[in-house]
């Protein structure tokens, strides 16, 4: 927190000293300082070049530097079986994009219900996923941590129920070293604690989107709620997955960040 204050005063100094410079330059500097702060908090700002998740559309505005934080741990919470399936689907979409760069991912779970052939729909070859099925939470956490330490993986999905702050910190430390992206999917957690993950998402199913006039079920659609994001602005979007891309059903969604921006309290 101290660091933030320092940085803010620095911003002010810069602003004073370089009064004559254009407003644009100031904005650049603030942007730069913001990046420094984010970096000091333990996660490296991914460069646009090698981030396969660099273009997610509207959602990007919510992320700290305008880009989906890879090399960090994201938490997904789901409360019923349908939401769990949707979360798995959404995670698979992100993982599919990550796997275009590197070959393999690890999927750790207790009592796996995921049906591998369905992954083809989200751009993943199911044979490139290594499932690790354990019987105890302790082993699951251990396996997730070990997998997150391995920089050769595209990503790690961990399906666990409960996790405390200490455990999540361990995972965070692991990814800070290895830069692997982790997705923790928590199905019906007993408590929702504060954890050291960079974000918390809720994915809920929405009626599928199909072209007007066509019968039957169309493309899977979800209500994606980004409830928490470190250094970013939470938001909610309605997204459908088609042709290997996210499509926003309602482009006029107002995020909390937008509200803040309008009222000038941000």
């Amino acid at each position, binding site marked *: 927190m101290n660091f933030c204050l320092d940085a803010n005063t620095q911003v002010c100094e810069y602003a004073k000293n370089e009064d004559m410079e254009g407003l644009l330059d100031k904005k650049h500097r603030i942007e730069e300082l913001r990046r420094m702060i984010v970096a000091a908090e333990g996660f490296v700002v991914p460069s646009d070049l090698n981030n396969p998740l660099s273009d997610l559309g509207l959602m990007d505005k919510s992320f700290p530097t305008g880009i989906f934080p890879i090399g960090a741990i994201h938490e997904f919470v789901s409360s019923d079986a349908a939401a769990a*399936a949707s979360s798995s689907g959404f995670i698979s979409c992100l993982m599919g994009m990550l796997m275009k760069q590197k*070959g*393999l991912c690890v999927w750790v779970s207790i009592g796996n219900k*995921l049906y591998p*052939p*369905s992954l083809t729909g989200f751009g993943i070859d199911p*044979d490139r*996923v*290594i499932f690790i*099925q354990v019987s105890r939470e302790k082993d699951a956490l251990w396996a997730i941590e070990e997998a997150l330490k391995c920089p050769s993986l595209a990503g790690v999905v961990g399906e666990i129920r409960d996790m405390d702050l200490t455990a999540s910190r361990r995972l965070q430390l692991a990814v800070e070293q290895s830069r692997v992206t982790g997705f923790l999917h928590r199905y019906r957690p007993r408590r929702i604690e504060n954890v050291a993950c960079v974000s918390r998402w809720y994915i809920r199913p929405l009626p599928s989107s199909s072209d007007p006039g066509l019968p039957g079920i169309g493309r899977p659609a979800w209500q994606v709620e980004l409830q928490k994001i470190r250094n970013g602005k939470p938001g909610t979007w309605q997204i459908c997955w088609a042709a290997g891309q996210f499509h926003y059903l309602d482009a006029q969604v107002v995020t909390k960040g937008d509200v803040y921006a309008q009222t000038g309290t941000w």
Partner: protein
Amino acid sequence: MVKRYVAIWFPYLLTDRLAIRQPELRGEPFVLTMAEKGRMLIRAVSPEAEAEGIKENMVLADAKALFPNLLVFDFDAAMSEKLLRRLGEWCLRYTPLVSVDVPDGLLLDVSGCTHLWKGEGYYLKEITTKMKAGGYHVRAAMADTPGIAWAVSRYGKEGQIIAEGELLMALLPLPPAALRLDDAVTQRMYKLGMRKVRDFIHLPATTLRRRFGQQLLDRIGQALGTSPEYLEPVCPVVVYQERLPCMEPVRTRKAIELALDNLLETLTARLFKEGQGLRKAVFKSFRMDGKVQEIAIGTNRPSRDRQHLFRLFNEKIAHIAPGLGIELFVLEAPVVEELHMEQERLWNKDNAFDRVEIGHLLDRIAGRVGEESIRRYLPDEHHWPERGVKRAASLEEQPSISWPTERPRPTQLLTIPQPIEVTVPIPDYPPMLFRYKGETHMIKKADGPERIEREWWMDQGEHRDYYYVEDEKGRRYWLFRLGHYSDDRSHQWYLHGYFA
């Protein structure tokens, strides 16, 4: 190199064992008996009881008449082999080749081992002293062939070492029983007055064969080293094995780690030289009290990476209980495979380094939670959804058919389809609503039916008609109805999965 063998004889094997377990029996005359043909027959005699004139195969009643205070215990026929096997494993610290000689001895191939104990005399003495300290009566002898070593240990002087090439001289003064012959043959020899080997060994082979059978000639040949004798080792000799004896017994984790690292260094260097990689490795620690503890690891691809192997073992070092101290470490690689510097690519998108790293990760996970828990799936040629995937045998295995993409498949598939209640307005239409776990789902959109036939060559039963449905909240399900519609019966519907 001249072969050298040691034979160890335990004249009181079973009674010694009992006396070790029940120290109050020491110095007491006791016997072990077994019921046979309606009487109690003595099968093992303690030294003290033997001094009273009691012999093996005596009837217990006769023995009691000789010595009324005789203690009697049960005889366990399988015990002697079990015990000998354990003693043989203990002897592995002296030589890698130990074989059990039922019912009361061990045979050790000690070629090239004795110099480590500064000579044959010290070597033999070391073994017998340790055994005696353990509470066993032993007699041991060393010679060029197992046959002579066996004969001398039983019928010669105690602790005799027959010098190289003096086989015949050693054999001559021994009785015919020293040749490991059947009882019937030895008794016939005694009847004919052949009380020593020297009485008959110069007789022509044809005569001996005619009178006493081929066995006698074989045994003489084996004793003199002219015909072969094979020992069956207690544990098979491992080609890739490294041993590290300790100057003093060690007990600390640090010391065990050092020993392990040391052994791994020599083993991996050797594997590298020979272009091999290990798939399985066993780290054994021999404790002072005779217990052998081992930890084993496996790798899913041949490896000779010292650090990686060390990490795999490191997870399990805690399972070693050093007790009073460990005096010998042995590292074995029972399964090795060829490992060349360059191997074919595993998947197109990754490089060799990634592959090795992931292999290491999976080894560690397998070491802790078991190999069974790591799974990769490949498409299988079955219509039935539950059989649509099969476990990949290895990390390298590629799908032989492409993944089916033409039909929607649920993200989560229930292992056992759950029965649901439905309302269906028109036959062969998707249901209007269904009830599952007390909740009613109104169906807004549906796709289907997709008929999946049962694979009649595997099991009998009705086909399934699958519907992909969406309820009013946008939740998507996979339902099916079992069998055809007909008027005369109701139809069971099931929920089989959730779509994303």
